[in-house]
């Protein structure tokens, strides 16, 4: 379980998070919605300890992330797969090496046969051909890079998966492919997921629960039905802005 309590963060004069409270339960997929620049990615980076909060805390499986020592934080990070917005693949390594780096157990990492097998499994899970393993990130399309990023995140069999805008910059067809992939992985691997997105349609397709982040605070969190029934002006404006037809939520 991930618990976020009173999280505050500012960069210079700009307040990005202003007291965020949120709980993500075991096994659920939470979509974190909000317009660009509202601190969704910053919130996600707090969970994995890449950013330290000014105030408040993030608790993962009962461990306060900020108070963890270096080795404890590394151990926690090995339980969390993070899918970066643009893949964040290592340019100098091919796809095989990129995914292999996701193997957080050093015994497995040094076992060549295991690595071959695991990389092939991960590529299959994200619907990529085995030949992709030999390619370099520069030879991949945007959608393929995102999928390799997901494959790297799942290689170490994490307990949690954090997706940072997995469909941004993709055409609707590829965005749907990624959304379906996220949904399938969550059910097949049984992980707890948080998906940061500003794509309401995708969030409604994938998530069990949603949270809307605006002006540094969570204005609403709940099920799709609760979102659709909400009278909060921020929620209505956000839902109407992204789509004028919410029937897809049914």
């Amino acid at each position, binding site marked *: 379980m991930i618990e976020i309590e009173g999280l505050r963060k500012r960069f210079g004069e700009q307040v990005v998070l202003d007291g965020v409270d949120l709980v993500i339960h075991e096994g659920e997929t939470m979509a974190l919605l909000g317009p660009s620049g509202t601190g969704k990615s910053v919130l996600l980076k707090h969970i994995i300890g890449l950013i330290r909060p000014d105030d408040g805390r993030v608790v993962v499986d009962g461990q306060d992330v900020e108070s963890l020592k270096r080795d404890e934080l590394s151990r926690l990070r090995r339980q969390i797969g993070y899918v970066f917005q643009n893949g*964040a693949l290592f340019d100098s390594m091919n796809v095989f090496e990129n995914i292999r780096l996701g193997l957080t157990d050093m015994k497995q990492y040094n076992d060549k046969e295991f690595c071959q097998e695991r990389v092939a499994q991960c590529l299959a899970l994200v619907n990529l051909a085995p030949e992709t393993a030999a390619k370099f990130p520069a030879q991949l399309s945007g959608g393929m890079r995102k999928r390799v990023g997901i494959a790297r995140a799942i290689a170490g069999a994490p307990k949690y998966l954090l997706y940072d805008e997995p469909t941004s910059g993709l055409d609707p067809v590829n965005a749907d492919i990624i959304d379906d992939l996220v949904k399938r992985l969550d059910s097949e691997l049984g992980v707890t997921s948080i998906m940061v997105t500003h794509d309401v349609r995708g969030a409604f397709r994938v998530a069990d629960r949603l949270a809307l982040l605006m002006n540094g605070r969570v204005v609403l969190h709940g099920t799709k039905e609760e979102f659709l029934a909400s009278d909060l002006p921020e929620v209505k404006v956000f839902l109407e802005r992204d789509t004028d037809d919410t029937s897809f939520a049914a």
Partner: protein
Amino acid sequence: MTALVLQAPRFVGRLVMGSLAHVGRFSLLVSELVRGLAEWRIWLPRTFVEAYNIGYGSLFIVLLISGFAGGVTALQAGYQWQSSLPMYVLGTLIVSSVVLELGPVLTALVLAGRIGARYAAELGTMRVTEQIDALESLGRSPASHLLIPRILAGLVMIPVLTVFANIMACVAGWYLVKQVLPITDADFIYGMQYYWRDFDGWYSIIKAFFFAGAITLIPCYVGFNTKQGAEGVGRATTAAVVNASVLILLLDVLLAKLLLNT
């Protein structure tokens, strides 16, 4: 005028705070490097790759520049030559200038541009494209994966390249001085050996080792702390080369004072 006076303390304050922040970040980087040394299985194979890239990749430009430097030293010696001096002094002059100063300093300045710029740009790009964050998110240490291999490879290969540069410059100087002055090989070798002290060779290598520290540590630090996209990478690359070059020149003076007892 009043506004300027009022702004001065703020400017000084920012400067002091900025400097302290650099000291703090640099200290953290060094502590990360020390901790990362334990992960030798990670950094050792990468160090060999980096060492090959630095050594083999820089050899041509280092030999070219040192060859020209040695040649020009010989030609200028010919221009300024006084016939009252014995010919063998030319051997001493060329070899000492090259080994004590030209070889290590020119090699370091060239490599500050070639390797320093590359390190800063690579690490800066990795920072702004979240590749370093990705490494950390996987529970891996950027120090053992990215920094230690680059720094160790530089610390080993830059002194080696300096030795090659010294040899090339001496050979080029020897060849060209024979074209402008009537000096024999025996005279040149005699002069080269007459004032030669083994310490001169060690001094050259010690200097190269310190310069290697400047060429690798500063660009790694600057690149690792890059911010603000492509513009930030450009700024980091320039800052890395300029700061490393200035530090090389400062170290040159400092080491001459400390090691040569002048």
